[in-house]
């Protein structure tokens, strides 16, 4: 029997080594090692062999069985590798085709810039408060120290909706609401839309402002400057400087206009700078120390001081996003809106 085993073994090893496909390999395995396989048949006949020869032949048969199994496995691994590399070679898509474009919406820059400011100033303690757009003339003017027949009313041409009802000309109208509605200390930001009779390339009849008001004991003008300094550095970059120039708003005293250093040309202004046009500075807001008249109207007494500031959101948004034309803000053009 041993020669027969050897002949099967040798033949099978040869066949396994030259098998071309996994299917052939499987066919060989079944033909030789399967229940009715040639090697199995030989082992079945082992019963008719003498007791002395049985272990000897059994050992040889097992040896061949193991050898064949190992050879089949080796060839299988080889063939599987070939199949995989064939698959990898043949399967190919054009990966340079861009992905499907889902619809992504966006917030209007007025919303996102307002939120950015709320976030930044929120870090040093400001809360949010709002008021109506159709406002009493009292809150829009008298309450912020702009009496009737005062020349300061020229600064803001006003739309009226009825007797003593205006479309608020500034978010400063929220100041007295806040002060009468709450006790000090008061630290609020008032964002919202405002209206003025003004319509040209650089003015829209409706725009947005955010007002800041901080009232407490011992608030100093240096606190105002520090707040604006922090604001400017967060919004326009850490190298930003602020510059205050004396100015006049009836609801503050002293009053100031604030410029921030141009974030584009950074200290070396060039006439070609499209942001500051060579001045090196950008006018961004008006501010000052709350006029004592307001505390009087609020019933606060003389032991408090405070500061207030107000800025145009569109102005800040246009600077930050380098938007060339104010009118884009209200046109709803998706070519514009989709950029933010």
């Amino acid at each position, binding site marked *: 029997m041993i020669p027969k085993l050897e002949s099967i073994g040798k033949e099978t090893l040869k066949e396994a080594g030259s098998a071309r496909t996994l299917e052939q390999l499987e066919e060989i395995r079944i033909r030789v090692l399967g229940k009715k396989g040639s090697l199995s048949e030989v082992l079945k006949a082992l019963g008719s062999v003498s007791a002395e020869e049985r272990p000897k032949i059994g050992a040889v048969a097992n040896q061949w069985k193991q050898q064949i199994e190992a050879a089949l496995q080796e060839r299988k691994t080889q063939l599987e590798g070939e199949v995989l590399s064939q698959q990898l070679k043949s399967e190919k898509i054009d990966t340079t085709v861009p992905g499907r474009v889902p619809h992504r*919406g966006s917030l209007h820059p007025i919303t996102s810039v307002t939120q950015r400011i709320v976030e930044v100033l929120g870090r040093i303690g400001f809360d949010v408060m709002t008021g109506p*757009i159709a406002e*009493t003339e009292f809150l829009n003017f008298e309450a912020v120290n702009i009496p009737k*027949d005062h020349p300061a009313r020229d600064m803001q041409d006003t739309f009226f*909706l009825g007797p003593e009802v205006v479309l608020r000309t500034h978010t400063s109208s929220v100041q007295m609401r806040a002060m009468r509605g709450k006790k000090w200390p008061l630290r609020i930001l008032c964002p919202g839309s405002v209206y003025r009779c003004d319509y040209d390339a650089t003015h*829209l009849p409706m725009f947005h402002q955010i007002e800041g008001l901080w009232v407490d004991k011992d608030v100093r003008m*240096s606190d105002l400057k520090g707040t604006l300094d922090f604001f400017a550095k967060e919004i326009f970059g850490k190298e930003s400087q602020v*510059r*205050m120039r004396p100015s006049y708003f009836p609801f503050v005293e002293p009053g100031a206009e604030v410029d921030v250093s141009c974030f584009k040309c950074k200290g070396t202004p060039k006439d070609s700078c499209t942001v500051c046009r060579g001045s090196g500075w950008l006018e961004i807001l008006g501010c000052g*120390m709350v006029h004592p008249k307001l505390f009087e109207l609020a019933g606060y007494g003389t032991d408090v001081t405070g500061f207030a500031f107000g800025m145009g959101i569109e102005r800040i948004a246009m600077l930050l996003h380098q938007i060339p034309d104010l009118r884009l803000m209200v046109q709803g053009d998706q070519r514009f809106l989709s950029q933010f």
Partner: protein
Amino acid sequence: MKISWKWLGEMVDLSGVETPQKLADLLTHRGLEVEEVRPLAQGLEKVITAQIVVRNKHPDSDRLSLCKVTIGKGDPLEIVCGAQNMKSGDKVALAMVGAQLPNGMAIAQSKIRGVVSNGMLCSEEELKFKEKSDGILILPESTPLGRPLAEALGLDDVIFTLKLTANRADCLSHLGVAREVAAALHSKLKYKMPELKLLELPAAPIAVKLEAGESSPQFYGIAIDGVKIGPSPSWMVRRLEGLGQRSINNVVDATNLVMLELGQPMHAYDADKIEGKLLKVRPAQKGEKIPLLDGQTAEMQGFELVISDGKKGVGLAGVMGGGNSEVSDATKKLFLEAAEFAPGLVRRASTKHQRKTEAAHRFERGVDPTMVRVAIVRLAQVILKTAGGKATGCSSAALASRDPSKKSAPRLILVEPDYFARFLGFTVPEKELEKVFVSLECGVQKGSGAWKISPPPYRLDLNIKEDLAEEVARTVGYDKIPSTIPVLTSAPTIGSSDPFRQRYDLNLKAKRLLAEEGLYETVNYGFTSMARLKEFGLSSSVKVVNPLSEEFEYMVPSLLPGLISQAQENARHHFGSEPLSIRLFEMGPTFTSAQAVVAQGEMQTTVEEKWKLGLVLSGPGFKSALKNDLKDVDFSDLRSVVDGFLTRLGAKGVRYMPLSDRTAESVRGWVHPGKSVEILAGQGSAGFLGLLHPARARALKLRAPLWIAELDWEAIAALSRPPHEPTHFKPWPEFPPMERDFALVVKEEVTADRIVQIALKTGRPLAKVARIFDVYKGSQVQQGMTSIAVRVIFYAEGRSLQESETEAVSAQIVQAWQKELGAELRG
């Protein structure tokens, strides 16, 4: 306010500044913002004095001339000229090739009708000497040739344009600015106030009288006889024109000049036209008509102050003189007026009668009460010099508060010197403080405690210690103020319980959710036109009283008209052949008033601001890299946006209701009745979504279907989960659920919503989810019927579900469908 560098230099020593620009910077940093620094010679660099040797006709034009022009040396130049007012021998202003004129015109050698022109003869308009001019500028015969025009005309001045704030009335004159400059440069004023001897003249034949109480506390008049009205001397013309004022005659120009010098507006009357030997200030009578200098007649409301003589009104006090008493070429006798009027009244009058004059501008901001009598003397002196004559008398009237013989108490501000450090945040030494006040001509009385500061009479804006703090800060320099961070003396408001903060945060959350649903946020004006509202069958109860135009006249009752306009605009923005997928939303207020709009006390109005949320969708539903592989947006897209939005907001109790005859007209007018739903929140309507009504779409000429939604944001916000409230974890079923799919055939009018509701209700508590997954109409089902496929998911909490239970519940559900909807189970 325009200020002349040369004139300023006559009033204050300017040697402390190197250039006009430096002075401008200095003033700006003291709070007098200089908008423009303009050398008068700017743009005249290549404009030369020249003479027309001979004027010929252009060979090819009747209208044009061909002039030979010499600049005194070299060959004459040939210049084509279109003007008609010149002749051979005239001296003219020649813009040479390369000149860049003040009006922006660049001069180049050019061919005009076949003839080369080597420059241009300039008009005053082109040189910006005047707003309008006829013909070219003809210079005096004595003008030397070949000299720069600026030099020949003495245009060696620099003009500053100041953008003055309303509080700095004192700087509406050269003297006022000179004082500010003196304080800034620590230099002395050179200006000498006139001696007031003319005030000691005997009473003038025309008396002056005050009949308006505190509204007009002083009035001075000086009579001058024997004047000769004529053109002003050239220095005066030049000075006024440089400052943007038109020269009229030697008397009117003098009043303007002295106003620009001292800040006091004044008026000169033809004394012979004054009747009754009297001029007085009195309140106007309602309906009284006053002819004004501008040739028009103003009808008084009654609140105004007028100047009148014994018989008639001769001027609207503080605003404009009368047309019935003005100086003419024939005037021989003058009566000069200088007075003080209540700022508020002047402002109301100038606003009401729409005459924003230089005089009104100054009076409404307040004039220096001590300057009235000085200015009239100065005016008389100038007129005597330029128009001759003799001052013959002086009349005056003043209330006690203005009587120079009675010393009234000065305005006093009490302030402790350490206040400034406490308020400004940095220390200014007492010595320095005192210097600041002295430089501003304030009186300083130091004491052991508070200082007594008395501001000069012309600084009407200095009244409280905060005013002084500004003076200190701007004198020391705002740049000296340090930066400190304010101290947080208490915890910030609890944002999650503060209603303002909550609403702000919820608004932002809602906007972000809609952006995540793929929509772009947009912004519209809060007002629109009646025409636009009518297109949508809308009206507005809130109207702008003084609109910019019809376009912006009515406050919006809905956000949709604005959004639809923007959608229409966007539809025109094709990129190549691809239509744009339009998807916009807006959150904003709408305005209504139940009654005529009025204020209700100091803090309230009748206007109700209801915030809404508007959405528009149109065009392709999906953008693929390769092709538009999805069809146009449909109801399902819109519904998906709104559903997703409301779910993520956590809006509780929001339901949809198909439109019916009972739906409000305000909703049915907007949308297609069969392709829309109303949104219900609590008991009321909270908006709608659906297809823009085809009738409206047709009227608007829309090409593509437009899907719209408008939500009552106040109602939805009230039902939404507070923005800071966390959602709670919900465990998922531990035991496997069972699913059953049903194919139902129902009548067309049976809604998917009903099928789901019946399944969930009947199948309680095991049927947890019912979902429509197919809707089919067509050849496989009978006409008028719909096939709807529903999947119901069953599970039991905490245990395995038995097959038999599911079967039993399913049977109940099917029965309910059959009973309530007449549904048939399909094979």
